[in-house]
């Protein structure tokens, strides 16, 4: 085993350069930390979109809930509509899947731990500190410097910021289009829900007055109690529709704000639609 000739002055300069590199990488990381935090906050909102899947399932199962209240003729008509709804359901769910997968991957890319090389950098720095000045050849130092530079380029916050920016830019239009569609689909769920409520409660409202005689008293009481339950159920569902529309709208707004922070000038600036889900896009003819 041989030791190299000591060249303390040269190695000292190289080490200074190495430290400078680290400092620069860390500073660049700090500058982009806030934006990355915002991206993570955005990605953390993905679970709120689960209300969309819940309502999609409920929409798909509309016939099942309506069936007891339908006449045979109406039931036969509903069967074909049910088939259409079940046919469309996978398409409705696919949008949610794409949006949530995208958001999660974006969040992982902006993740605090993914690019965090503190431990490794610390270990390396300690290694250098423990390095006796004597016995380092310039060739050694150059080799380490090369590796470290590569490392800094790969792991710096700037690299992460760039990766996130690129993903945001490429995903901007598809994401906005998908969120638009989710809002539209939710509006249709809400309108279908209104008609379902009108069919179920309306049937009870039309029939109950004709049971208003002593002989049918028990029937009338049960019908009224049942109507109260159903009315409460539909009222809660109405609130869930409103909340789901708001979640989609919030995510769309956050997504647009992120795109602005990253200087992604969208080809066409979309404006998030207003929260009210029951407001029809097309006015009444």
């Amino acid at each position: 085993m041989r030791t190299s000739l000591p060249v303390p002055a040269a190695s000292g300069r190289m080490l200074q350069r190495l430290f400078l590199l680290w400092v620069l990488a860390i500073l660049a990381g700090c500058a982009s930390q806030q934006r990355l935090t915002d991206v993570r906050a955005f990605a953390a909102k993905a679970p709120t979109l689960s209300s969309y899947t819940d309502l999609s399932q409920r929409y798909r199962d509309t016939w099942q809930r309506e069936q007891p209240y339908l006449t045979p003729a109406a039931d036969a008509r509903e069967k074909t509509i049910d088939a259409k709804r079940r046919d469309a359901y996978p398409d409705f769910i696919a949008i949610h899947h794409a949006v949530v997968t995208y958001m999660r991957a974006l969040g992982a890319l902006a993740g605090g731990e993914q690019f965090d090389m503190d431990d490794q950098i610390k270990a390396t720095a300690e290694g250098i500190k423990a390095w006796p000045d004597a016995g380092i050849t310039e060739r050694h130092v150059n080799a380490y410097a090369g590796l470290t530079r590569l490392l800094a380029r790969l792991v710096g916050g700037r690299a992460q910021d760039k990766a996130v920016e690129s993903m945001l830019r490429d995903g901007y239009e598809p994401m906005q289009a998908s969120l638009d569609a989710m809002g539209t689909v939710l509006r249709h769920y809400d309108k279908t829900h209104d008609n379902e409520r009108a069919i179920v409660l309306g049937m009870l409202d039309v029939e109950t007055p004709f049971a208003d005689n002593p002989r049918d008293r028990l029937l009338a009481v049960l019908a009224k109690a049942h109507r109260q339950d159903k009315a409460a159920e539909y009222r809660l569902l109405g609130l869930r529709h409103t909340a789901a529309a708001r979640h989609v709208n919030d995510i769309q707004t956050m997504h647009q704000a992120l795109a602005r922070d990253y200087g992604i000038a969208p080809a066409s600036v979309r404006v998030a639609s207003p929260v009210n889900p029951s407001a029809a896009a097309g006015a009444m003819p």
Partner: protein
Amino acid sequence: MSQHAPSPADIEALADSLSASANELHDSIMRAIRRNGTADDAGADAGPPVTHAEAQALFEQEVELRQRANSLYVDSARFAVAGLSVPAQEMLRLAAQARETIRRIDRARDLAGIVASLLGLAGAIVGRQPKDAAAALEDLKDNLAAFKADSRKPDDAPTMGT
């Protein structure tokens, strides 16, 4: 309306108007039913009473209007998502790409391990401590092996944190 195929907005608007008609029909059915009980008090000008069968027949019409509206809502909603399979694929592709980037970062971590091993080795050599050098060399071998194994790793994505 245009002469072209109806747009999703046209279909939705038509469905809205069917729903609105059903609402009006329901209101008039309920008014007629309510008159049944009060006909004696209100006098003859309150309008004719409605029989149970008539009310049921009218309500059946109301239900049919609502069903036609709901059928149009499915069509309109399907139109809204019809063009979205390409954007959805693009988003899934970007997500896969992000996972690939994360995987590369994991490789960079292995690289960091190699740098640390090299430093350990160099320190041991400089300090003329053969025992430490041998250990550092083993460490370096392990790290290089991990790095190579990671390079060969197929394209499957690592499990996502959140």
